[in-house]
């Protein structure tokens, strides 16, 4: 099997794998939000940025190749990933203490993983809406980070095309495929992959908010690096 190195560690990979797939298979965690095994790579959040032979690229889209020297766990990269995470926080309206996703939220967990202690950048405080029209699912645009996972899940797994990302630049927004633009008039149902895939609290299942109390949630006792490797290893 061909090999590459990640932070000096030799890692074997299957031809066709991306760097993040090779890393995950070898038990190495690279922070990520828009990447999920089994979904087409997107490469937009840039948290998985690594240095390959001296050049920065996204580990989730860049193909692994024989002899690559990948740096992932450097101080510089960790610091810059933290800044990108801080950017995601100030772009939307993320208030962890009052968010029902707290403890199960990947954005929050990545923040902890990267030792993010403040938001650093000035907040945008955008005016965004909440779509509570659907009987089973809530869409809170305040927390959307445009990772595109719900778009891909609906298209690739559910075969429905319920979501799309529209607009340009800082005015990007998630739109819903319904003549009214409302979730209740879309084809989304509670058993769709797209309803469960959101890494933040933008898409939530109703009537389940505090079934599991804070303190007993996914990332309350295990960092996202451990959880992600456990969930994604071998996929």
């Amino acid at each position, binding site marked *: 099997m061909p090999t590459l190195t990640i932070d000096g560690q030799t890692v074997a990979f299957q031809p066709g794998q991306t760097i993040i797939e090779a890393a995950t298979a070898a038990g190495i965690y690279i922070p990520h939000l828009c990447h999920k095994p089994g979904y087409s790579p997107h490469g937009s959040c840039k948290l998985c940025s690594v240095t390959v032979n001296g050049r920065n690229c996204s580990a989730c889209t860049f193909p692994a190749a024989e002899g690559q020297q990948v740096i992932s766990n450097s101080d510089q990269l960790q610091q810059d990933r933290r800044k990108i995470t801080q950017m995601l926080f100030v*772009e939307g309206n993320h208030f962890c203490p009052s968010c029902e996703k707290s403890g199960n939220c990947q954005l929050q967990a990545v923040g902890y993983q990267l030792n993010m202690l403040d938001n650093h950048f000035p907040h945008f405080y955008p005016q965004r809406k909440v779509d509570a029209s659907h009987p089973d699912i809530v869409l809170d645009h305040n927390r959307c980070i445009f990772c595109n996972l719900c778009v891909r899940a609906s298209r690739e797994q559910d075969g429905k095309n319920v979501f799309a990302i529209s*607009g340009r630049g800082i005015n990007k927004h998630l739109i819903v495929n319904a003549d009214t633009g409302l979730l209740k008039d879309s084809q989304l149902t509670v058993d769709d992959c797209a309803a469960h895939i959101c890494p933040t609290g933008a898409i939530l299942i109703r009537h389940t908010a505090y079934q599991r109390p804070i303190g007993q949630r996914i990332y309350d006792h295990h960092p996202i690096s451990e959880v992600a490797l456990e969930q994604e290893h071998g996929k």
Partner: protein
Amino acid sequence: MQMFIQEVLATIEHQPVRLLTILRKIQNRYRHIPLAAIEQLAEALAIPRTQIIAVVEFYSFFHLTPQGRYEILLSDSITDLMLGQAANARYLAEKLGVEPGNVRHDGLVSLNFTSCTGLCDQGPAALINGLPVAQLDFAKIDSLVGLIDQQVPVEQWPAAWFDVNDNIQHPGLLLNSTIKPGQGLAAAWQRGLAATLQQIDQSGLRGRGGAGFKTAQKWRFCAEENSAQRYVVCNADEGEPGTFKDRVLLNRYADQVFEGMTLSAMIVGANQGFLYLRGEYAYLYQALEAVLLRRRQQGLLGANILGHGVSFDIEIRLGAGAYICGEESALIESLEGKPGIPRNRPPYPVSSGYLNQPTVVNNVETFLAAAAIAAHGGQWFASVGTEKSAGSKILSISGDCARPGIYEYAFGTTIARILADCGASEVLGVQVGGPSGTFISIEEADRRLAFEDLATGGSFIIFNRSRSIFDIAKNFTDFFAHESCGFCSPCRIGTSLLKKQLDKIVLGHGSVGDVVELESLSNLLKQYSHCGLGQTAANPVLTTLQRYPELYQQQLKQISYEPGFDLDAALETARQMANRDDAAAHLQQVED
């Protein structure tokens, strides 16, 4: 409307890849894209309505709400502003009774700013219902406001208003040796296609869009891909502020550009080509179509080119106001009828481009040069220029100089020589390569035009000593924030943060750490953005900061920290609610 859309759908043969074409027609006719039209298109093209909405909301020239029957777009490129566009905007707004960014209450007229319209040598410029108006001034404004109020159709306005000058000031190697229609193709056929590719290789021709990839290598890679279908695309999405040479090349030498595309198609084995023309240049469309038609009649395009059985044709597809579509993979997405979001690479377009087939994408000037090389030979081209940058470069020169326009120079020419030729004096600096390029000060006038020194896609903006570094950096930084496609987090959020951070300093609210923060943010954008736009978006800040650190420092207040917003103003709502205006209800911005 249903009938109209059905007719338009028939003309585009119900192809979803031509979505932008149909949306342009609907926008032109109804001044917006009505929701009913979106529903009808989604049904007829069998695509989700969200895909259509995403396209409408991505491109600046499409709107979900009606624009005025007279739609006025003012170019807000720095070159237009230097020529008085801000005063024009105020005057127009007052005369028309509508503020920029709005439609007048009667729906008759709308006023907006738009990114560089490519008329920098004859600004301030505007597009009115898509037609170019150069050298806009108060007198023209007075007349056009009258014509609008009398509802005279734009077609009946004084034709001279819409004249656009080519302003070729200094022709060089290419512009002095243009070829006759068919001359390049005939020479290539006679020499043999493989030998012609060899000539292009020997010429040393590199891509003229700015990146400088070797043209022969690109064509060879594409030809070597194992595929039944290949495409040749001409990138005429000349959106870099300060660039307009492709407008002139297409206006005057379209034949030779199409000839270069046809040559490329013959060499790589493509039978379909596209000219992706920026929406701002839509007024060139008819004349370009006429050239294509004539070339078909002359046997230079179509099923049997020059009687050799080679088949190739060119379709013109228009953009709709998005700078990012100048990036080749974003351009390909746009050609496919989607928002112009740059693709992940690899794969590169030469192996997986339009409809995932091998695709050559080259700049207008590259095709113009390739056709000339086919006719005159590789040595003719390589004998000019420097070792690493063969041939000549066509520049769009604008800003503070006596003779703005088109200049062509051999690579290796010094900036000083160019400044002397165009009549620039009291020069502060030059923006070489547009906002994504480099700002150089007059101290660096001995530097040379070359890929190995100062690379440029063609933009060359001159600033004299009356200009402020901050006006320049701010205009360009705002431009990138406006044009970021928003796909990746560093660029989507970072360009807007950079704009805020620069504003904070320029407006005098910066303190000690703020320049450090500005630089740190710039480096983050540069290193982690998905594509060239984000990677270069901080160049205006970085290149001016590098040259004028003292100017940035002088803007800062001599305090350790100042809030990024106005504390006292933020209390206004609270004061009103409490019905107070005493001293204790006010806050000072900084402690004494």
